[in-house]
């Protein structure tokens, strides 16, 4: 792998950039791998990377029906935080957070993880109770966070309307300083480059059309480029997970919904943190390019169309202008949608399935991007050992039979 550095950049400039190598290969599928990862998004690529790098499983293929990182990795609002309420979720997201903190160096790829802090606003007494509960739990779980009052919020974000005149005045917020944003595409590309360097085959434009299952054990997949064998298959296909599960002969407790987002035109730096409000229902940050990146809500119906309904966008911008009246004259440039696979308890599934050797990692809802390194790491560990990693254990799909749900609707952010 060609190492990246400032010095290297100068060197390449002098040779007119003619000597840059491919960041990943475009290999021909082998007949057989030790592990197949279905889905070449951030989570799938991270899984492959850690399998090869940390767990010594190098004969790995990542199968992606489109282009890598082209699903929700490319369509989210890039927020990274770990201030989840329940111990199980907090452990998972904090595991990810720790990996985020060294990720650019680990991958030798600048994922621009910007720990500019995330505010979760409270507008009602119950919001504040929930915030206190969550921050107290975070603290005892070793996750940074504090509760701010309205004055503290105003100091952090002077341009926000924190007055009592607001329809739902800001009463306070939780503040996680280590949280922030990252460059979404770079995460997929960085993991792809890293995985490729460790020998992982990334097979783009390759679609899984079925599973090869014998006596309840998986031994490969059918694809549009022929059959590929492996005794361990991990599906990390987000919105398309249910479609894959159907091929495996079972259902998942998932619904795939449109989740929309939008950006303003680029403007000069004006917002230095991430601001999220469940109650007024919008969240916002500013990208390095200057766009205000705004998350809209989940549409209530199932949809694979990568688009949602217009009123969702209207409601979101109403919330943004309610919080930031000065943005009224700023303009919306683009809106788009992703397909989020949501679980009834707003927590993911990282699980064995009724088919031996077939594992699923899905159901991340709105929480997927921020979990990318942690999700990949614990999933890789589980695939490598054939036993679920302790952090992944509570996220079994079978919790929906026992009733041991991990209800994170409160912490899962705006879209719930």
């Amino acid at each position, binding site marked *: 792998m060609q190492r990246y550095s400032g010095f290297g950049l100068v060197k390449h400039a002098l040779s007119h950039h003619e000597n840059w190598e491919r*960041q990943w290969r475009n290999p021909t599928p082998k007949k057989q791998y030790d592990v197949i990862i279905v889905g070449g998004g951030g989570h799938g690529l991270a899984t492959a990377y850690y399998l090869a790098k940390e767990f010594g499983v190098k004969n790995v293929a990542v199968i992606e029906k489109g282009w890598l990182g082209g699903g929700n990795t*490319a369509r989210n609002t890039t927020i990274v935080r770990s201030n989840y309420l329940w111990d199980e979720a907090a452990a998972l997201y904090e595991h990810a957070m720790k990996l985020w903190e060294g990720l650019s160096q680990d991958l030798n790829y600048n994922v621009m993880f910007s720990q500019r802090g995330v505010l979760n606003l409270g507008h*009602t007494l119950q919001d504040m109770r929930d915030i206190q509960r969550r921050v107290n739990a975070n603290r005892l779980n070793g996750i940074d966070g504090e509760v701010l009052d309205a004055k503290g919020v105003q100091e952090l974000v002077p341009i926000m309307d924190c007055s009592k005149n607001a*329809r739902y005045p800001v009463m306070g917020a939780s503040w996680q300083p280590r949280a922030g944003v990252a460059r979404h595409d770079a995460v997929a590309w960085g993991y792809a480059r890293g995985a490729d360097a460790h020998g992982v085959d990334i097979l783009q434009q390759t679609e899984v059309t079925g599973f090869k299952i014998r006596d309840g054990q998986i031994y490969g997949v059918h694809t549009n480029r022929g059959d590929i064998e492996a005794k361990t298959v991990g599906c990390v296909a987000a919105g398309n997970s249910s479609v894959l599960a159907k091929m495996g002969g079972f259902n998942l407790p998932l619904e795939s919904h449109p989740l929309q987002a939008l950006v303003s035109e680029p403007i000069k730096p004006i917002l230095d943190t991430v601001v999220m409000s469940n109650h007024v229902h919008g969240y916002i940050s500013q990208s*390095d*390019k200057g766009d205000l990146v705004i998350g809209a809500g989940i549409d209530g119906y199932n949809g694979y169309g990568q688009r949602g309904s217009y009123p969702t966008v209207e409601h979101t911008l109403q919330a943004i202008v309610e919080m930031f009246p000065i943005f009224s004259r700023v303009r919306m440039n683009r809106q788009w949608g992703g397909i989020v696979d949501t679980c009834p308890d707003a927590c993911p599934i990282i699980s064995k399935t009724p088919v031996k050797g077939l594992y699923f990692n899905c159901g991340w809802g709105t929480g997927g991007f921020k979990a990318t390194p942690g999700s990949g790491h614990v999933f890789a560990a589980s695939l490598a050992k054939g036993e679920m990693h302790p952090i992944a254990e509570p996220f079994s799909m079978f919790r929906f039979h*026992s*009733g041991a749900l991990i209800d994170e609707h409160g912490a899962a952010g705006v879209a719930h």
Partner: protein
Amino acid sequence: MSQSKQQVFRLNAGGRIDRSRTLSFTFNGQHYQGHPGDTLASALLANGVDIVNRSFKYSRPRGIVAAGAEEPNAIVQLGSSEAAQVPNVRATQQTLFNGLTARSTNGWPNVQRDLMGLFGKLGGQFMPPGFYYKTFMAPASMWLTYEKYIRKAAGLGRSPMEADPDSYDHFNQHCDVLVVGAGAAGLSAALAAARSGARVMLADEQEEVGGSLLDSRETLDGKSADQWVAQVLEELAEHENVTLLPRTTVNGYHDHNFVTLHERRTEHLGETASVINGHRPVRSRMHRVRAGQVILATGAHERPLVYAGNDVPGNLLAGAVSTYIRRYGVAPGRKLVLSTSNDYGYRAALDWKESGCEVVAIVDAREAPAGDWVDAARAQGIKIITGSAVIEAKGSNRVTAARVAKIDIEAFKVSGPVQELACDTIASSGGYSPVIHLASHTGARPTWRDDIIGFVPGLVKGVQACGGANGTYALGEVLAEGVEAGIKAAAATGHAAQAVNLPSVERLQQGPAVALFQVPHEKPTLRGPKQFVDLQNDVTAAGIELATREGFESIEHIKRYTAMGFGTDQGKLGNINGMAIAARSLRRSIPEVGTTVFRPNYTPVTFGAIVGRHCRDLFDPERYTALHQWHVERGAEFEDVGQWKRPWYYPQKVNGTTETMHEAVARECLAVREKVGILDASTLGKIDIQGPDAREFLARIYTNKWEKLAVGKCRYGLMCKDDGMVTDDGVTSCLAENHFLMTTTTGGAAAILEWLELWHQTEWPELDVYFSSVTDHWATMTITGPEARKLLAEITDIDLDRDSFKFMDWRSGKVAGVPARVFRISFTGELTFEINVQANYAMHVWQTLFKHGEKYGLTPYGTETMHVLRAEKGFIIVGQETDGSVTPEDLGMQWCVGYDKPFSWIGKRALTRSDTKRENRKQLVGLRPKDPKVVLEEGAQIVLDPKHAIPMPMVGHVTSSYYSPTLKSGFALAVVKGGLQKLGETVYLPMADGQTFEAEIVSTVFYDPKGERQNV
């Protein structure tokens, strides 16, 4: 200076501007003049302003390129006052008005002399696409610092720092046929549809309707094109069912023919709307249109040619040159070189020549161009250099010369000697790309057509494209397609076709165009001077080539790696060229590389317009009870509960100072415990349930039993979802054998009514029962406290005797002369009467209670006191003690669960799942702080071992916590793992400030455990 001298590039005649009037404006602090009919861009060109901005990445000087929505460079900051600031206005679409104030969005210290430009020149080669992924990584802690400087360099304009003085609104529109674009195709389509009687909307983004007809060289029925436009508009105006919307951009096409239109109402008049008759009209308006049929007549965008130095000011689109000359009376230079791959480009040279300026040469990439306009150029004596192209523009702040050479398109190389032609303007045309943006908003894929060298829109049901949007450019054909589309659309909505006679149009002879997306240079692309593809984001042909070299093969990867098409112009100018360059690099065809799917908005839309009237006081409804006026006058502080405004507490002024919440709540609590208090409880949801199966229905939906509840009696009920988790609670009263009144939580009212309907409509339609909301019909006033009976007795005819009107009974009669239903239920533990009257009488009854209540110390109390009082009694609040993971058993409310009811009620089965029947679930308990002065924090986490290392195992959390003036101590409710087995044990609550509180687990009932006080 005289005006004409100022506008040195203004032509003496021609154009659609009003030279008799002059408008003043400033740009970057300089004063200029223009005329009504100008855009800011045409006025800047008229005044010879070459540099309008600096580029995003390399800070290169940039000038105006286009004349419409595709303009990437002329992005300015508008506004003379802080509140009126508008970032990122496209000068080509901003109508000039008197006093307009604009600035460049980039450039420091100014746009002419920009220091960053130096950096860009020196450092440009160190900033290939994706360079930031490859550096700034060490040390890890420095990224935030690097980022700060990167952020500073980014962004275009700036946000205003004051609230918007303008307002906006929405129109919900419905029509049979929506025609998008009012050029030749759109006008003829609208005319055809209108004549058939359909409801037609016609929207056009420009200041003036007519599209390219406004600067056309062609004639219709022997008349100039703009005359035909005027005639069509006249007829459309006569049709009552036609809505014509100029200055209206159709910016989003959504599912099922829902289309959003952004109409600019005052932006052409001033930076803020001026007040007329004491009223400020809206700045802009969104039309939310549901159309039966949509006709896309959005025309086509010209593609520039990609050659070295093509970003130097003075490089323009050929079509834009024509538009500036013919529509605005401006020749944006003196000496023109035209580089073209097609016949359409010739128009610019003809117009230029006719305006009296010099055409140095037409450089045509084709070996043997032939056609009417080619002939016309030859006839005018214009030099035509064939088989060649402008391979490089020379100049830094303005074009000084064009380097022209023979090129071999197939071999992608310069095949002949280079000549340098002195000029100040280079116009280029690489052909046209249909405007397919709207069609692709709902995911439809466009199709590549080799014959027109462009994509045409993929279309879903109910949408047609015609004219330029469909790749049809010959005027006669465009008109015919428009009419056909109009007739078809009208017919599809049930309106029969009427005859439309097409105007006669001279048929132009045109030669075939050649596909030319990147002009070769003597040097290979990576080594040659920059050839810009996306001017706004500084994406070059070399950058695209480099991206493909690094393995970015999908067009989506290439776009993301290079940022191509992510600007505010969304790649209108550059995307097709960029895709073609990528295709060549990858040795694939354009359709193989991919198609372009655009997202809304077509052009950016002000947040305010999308928000409309739903802001400020109208952001979200505030729901009031019938007593709201009284609460306001009494100085209540309000709590938001759902959309309701409920009195939270009533601070009093004591000796000139206003009570704190703590003081007010203590006073209110004691008043209830010792005398009598009153609460406005009108916000509770109330559902009227009637029918012979009402009782059975209640038994299925509630956890507890209802078969024996007699007429005149009330009962508390708990509701679960079918997962066994508590979702609502309230008191339901039996009004008659087949008639019940259910109350719900304030926040749950609407959801519970829908919940009841859901089960009735989907699972149990055989049950004869109806539900109707009567929440707003009744006002509910709760009087509670030892003196409640005495007070009520003064103004009611109801027998309040404790033996005839028992706890959990209801009676009807008159209160203060008003028919009332009175319920003896209690949420405070005190003697309580809930008085319900028709809401229109509420104020009278409330005031009468106060008239009589003074002597009993009647005290109004709010939700905070209500919470303290109910918590002292261990009564739960759904949503506070519960969070969707709490069963009735977890709450210790087995007394409210009918385990042996015949029907397996909603939630029952789930209670025996392995996790819900497990030991050690979190259970509701009371907490008594060891130090009575301590009020535990709500949300505090509970641990058994406060010395345990982090992560510290947590066993539960505080759900409610208050200071009780009655108990003279703090107390709390909490959920604790296995809590009911731990009564009497000590638990710990480690706080953020390092303190750890101790508390004892106790019963949830802190006050009057036997419940005697409510029974008195």
